[in-house]
């Protein structure tokens, strides 16, 4: 990595590669993997970063991300906007996000259907929202504001949930479909979150997926989860991001890609981060499915066109 000149607002970096994210596997970027990724013969399709980790003024994080961006397309995934917040969005944080987006020219920008800030406290967790009219209106107006500030579409990610709100009057899929319809945002489908929530809330993941507006999905997340039990001994899955993707989640992924065709697919691994080759193995597994299904899918659509 070579030294980079200080970045100023409005700068565009001619050394960056094309921003378009291919319908291939990507990986969540960890600082300890940067050098290995840059030297690897296996060219990962894209990398994704948590926006907040690059909201510092300068130093090594920006140097590393610049080197990555010179070689790979990038997806920026926010974890701190608190889109579901009851107390409104933080303008300063939107400005920070815009700065990261303007600087690194990502192919995709995404956030969560969740909240993480209340009053002045940031909880560093993706907390659930009730699926009712009032929350729907609020989330939509928040997404409108973010999309307007960034001057681009964002993707909204479905959450992992452990509880329900009695006041919810819609299903999660109805709630998310309505948000996408009203705001024009795209969707990030986290299949591990689907599996975790379905198990925890006792519905079938395939039912959820059949109700999910797949035509609006522009990215998929895969991750590992931990297993626990609730007060009555029923399965309680935790969205831990600390291990390989579960086989059941791979099966669902295969079905989804078979239906909708190849989509950029990110493998997330945020805790107990392994050496790069372990994470790369997960990405390669996703690549295999994407390649295999690309042929099937094309065949399927040709048949449809001919028929």
């Amino acid at each position: 990595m070579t030294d980079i000149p200080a970045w100023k607002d409005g700068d565009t970096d001619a050394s960056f590669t094309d921003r378009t994210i291919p319908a291939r596997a990507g990986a969540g970027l960890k600082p300890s993997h940067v050098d290995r990724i840059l030297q690897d013969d296996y060219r990962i399709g894209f990398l994704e970063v948590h926006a907040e980790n690059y909201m510092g003024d300068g130093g090594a994080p920006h140097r590393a991300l610049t080197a990555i961006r010179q070689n790979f397309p990038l997806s920026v995934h926010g974890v701190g906007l608190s889109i579901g917040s009851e107390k409104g969005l933080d303008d300063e944080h939107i400005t920070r996000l815009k700065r990261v987006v303007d600087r690194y020219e990502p192919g995709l920008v995404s956030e969560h259907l969740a909240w993480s800030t209340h009053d002045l406290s940031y909880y560093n967790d993706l907390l659930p929202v009730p699926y009712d009219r009032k929350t729907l209106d609020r989330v939509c107006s928040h997404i409108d504001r973010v999309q307007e500030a960034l001057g681009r579409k964002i993707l909204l990610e479905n959450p992992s949930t452990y509880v329900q709100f009695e006041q919810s009057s819609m299903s999660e899929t109805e709630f998310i479909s309505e948000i996408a319809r009203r705001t024009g945002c795209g969707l990030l489908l986290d299949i591990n979150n689907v599996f975790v929530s379905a198990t925890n809330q006792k519905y079938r993941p395939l039912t959820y997926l059949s109700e999910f507006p797949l035509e609006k999905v522009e990215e998929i997340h895969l991750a590992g989860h931990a297993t626990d039990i609730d007060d009555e001994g029923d399965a309680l899955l935790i969205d831990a991001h600390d291990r390989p993707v579960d086989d059941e989640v791979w099966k669902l992924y295969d079905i989804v890609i078979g239906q909708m065709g190849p989509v950029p697919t990110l493998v997330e691994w945020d805790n107990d981060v392994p050496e790069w080759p372990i994470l790369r193995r997960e990405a390669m597994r996703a690549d295999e499915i994407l390649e295999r299904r690309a042929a099937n899918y094309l065949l399927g659509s040709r048949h449809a066109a001919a028929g």
Partner: protein
Amino acid sequence: MPRPDSNSEAAKTVRTVTLGRFSDALLDPEQPTPAGIVGPDGKKADKRFDVYRNNVTVSLVGALAEIYPAVHRLVGDDFFRAMARTYVRSEQPKSPLLFRYGDDFADFLEGFEPAKKLVYLPDVARLERAWLDAFHAADAPPLDPAALAAIAPDELAEQRFKAHPATRVVCSRFAAVSIFSANRSGADLSGIDPAIAEDGLVTRRDFDVEVRTLPEGAAAFLQALVDGNTLGEAAEAAVAVAQKFDLAAAIGAMLEAGAFTAIATKD
């Protein structure tokens, strides 16, 4: 996916949980699960709600452990986690920029009774906080020594300097710098007398943060310069606290460390 309460909605009153109510219960284990937070089919959700409580506490304790790795190692994992949980309950991050969390952790340590015996701990925490601030500070090229050499000797005392965004001075009544450095490099603490006062300078010339021990008086000198005083005033401040203050050595050290970026233009 079933609609929650699709059958029972008319039959019973729905208990509404605000996010404020949700967040109050998050950090207070004494509080029950908010009424209206349920599991599937409306069953109770205490253990389910505890997942969120646990996520918040564990992730914030983990964030502190990453920001304060030397403090973590010095007190051991169990002690650190118990101590950090106490802190997390009273102080949550004020922004989603987690690397800024815990700016008053050192002050908390001053008053944390069970760690009182480790008198140097708060100052080690101050160094760690300064280290991470320097790590994320804006990039800036350090002052070229030639720029200083070009100043006529009789004008030298009038010069002011622009501090590098990464520069931090940390003073300690204990051997905090030696303890910090030994711990971070994996060395043991034998041979370090914790009672010897040390001042530290934290800088970042390019991308690597550097921490050095300052000779007597140099902390007062550098802090005065950082605060915008002239070289002459800074030297006086240093002599006031250390009669043996060596001005030439201090200037050499500040240039080598890259503590400043420019000679401030007069206005």
